[in-house]
């Protein structure tokens, strides 16, 4: 079973560079869960999700230190970025999965890049 590992910044940069100028599918999400304001009435439910956005980026960079990183993808006419990424995995399909989890292991943010569409 594959388990996500703590991000090694140099390795992550190499993986990001691998997709430069290729047509790729991007999954980007962030969420604090549908129950955030149910369990805490001072909390807000916020989230955003895009799956299989077909893009091509000219340049990618991972920045950060310790246990939280930011990744930005520069597009011809725009940008994609995610903040709070701490773990990554290159899965069997060659997809680069990056995510940030809270201390209970719940996913807070994910940025994933693939040369083939993500399933489901």
């Amino acid at each position, binding site marked *: 079973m594959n388990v996500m590992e703590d991000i090694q910044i140099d390795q992550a940069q190499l993986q990001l560079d691998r997709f430069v100028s290729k047509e790729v599918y991007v999954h980007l999400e962030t*969420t604090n869960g*549908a*129950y955030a304001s149910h369990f805490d009435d001072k909390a807000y439910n916020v989230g955003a999700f895009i799956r299989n956005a077909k893009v091509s980026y000219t340049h990618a960079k991972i920045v950060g230190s310790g246990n939280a990183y930011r990744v930005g993808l520069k597009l011809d006419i725009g940008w994609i970025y995610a903040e709070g990424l701490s773990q990554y995995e290159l899965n069997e399909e060659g997809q680069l999965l990056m995510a940030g989890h809270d201390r209970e292991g719940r996913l807070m943010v994910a940025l994933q890049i693939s040369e083939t569409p993500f399933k489901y």
Partner: protein
Amino acid sequence: MEKHVVVIYPHPDDESFGASGTITKFRQEGVPVTYLCGTLGEMGRNMGNPTFANRETLPEFRKNELIDACNVLDVELQMLGYRDKTLEFESKNEVAEHLLGILDELKPSLVITHYPEHAVHPDHNALGAAAIEAVGRIDENSRPTVWAQAITRTHQVDLGKPDVEIDIAPYFKKKMEAILAHQSQAQGVLGSMSDTSDDMEEIAKERLGNEFFYTWKY
């Protein structure tokens, strides 16, 4: 006695947390139960603790957990194939027609679903509304009863006391077993229900000791 009970919820684990005591009661009476599960919980945040799933592997884990839980509860399972967190954006009419097609075949005497606008998660509210719409399209003479489950903090204030209360104490062991079949979710979900305890069985007994429903009035 009920003839056939159909449970309609959107996520793998809704059946175990929400209605597995009631389901067990019906199964022990010999009543067939079918679970129509809307999605595979693809967007769940709990990835196991310690984490063992990721966004791409979670649906497969949850599908297997769902099958395990349905085996524990001895219920038939149909997966409806929607995507987690998107049910409220689907056409309510199309979802209702989809459900109606299945209900026409199963001919249940009782349908259990979420109470629209009182079920916290947007998928709960949307699938509950579509299920209630579907049942409403069945001819009055053969229309099953609907038990709607409300889980908002204020549902008793808003809706009054639920008219159906199932004491699940005799079925709690089965309920716990069904919840624990959802390995990627059980600990995270129960943990979020309590700040003071990390004993999963204790939290479940306190928070999930009874199952309440409102009989829907058409």
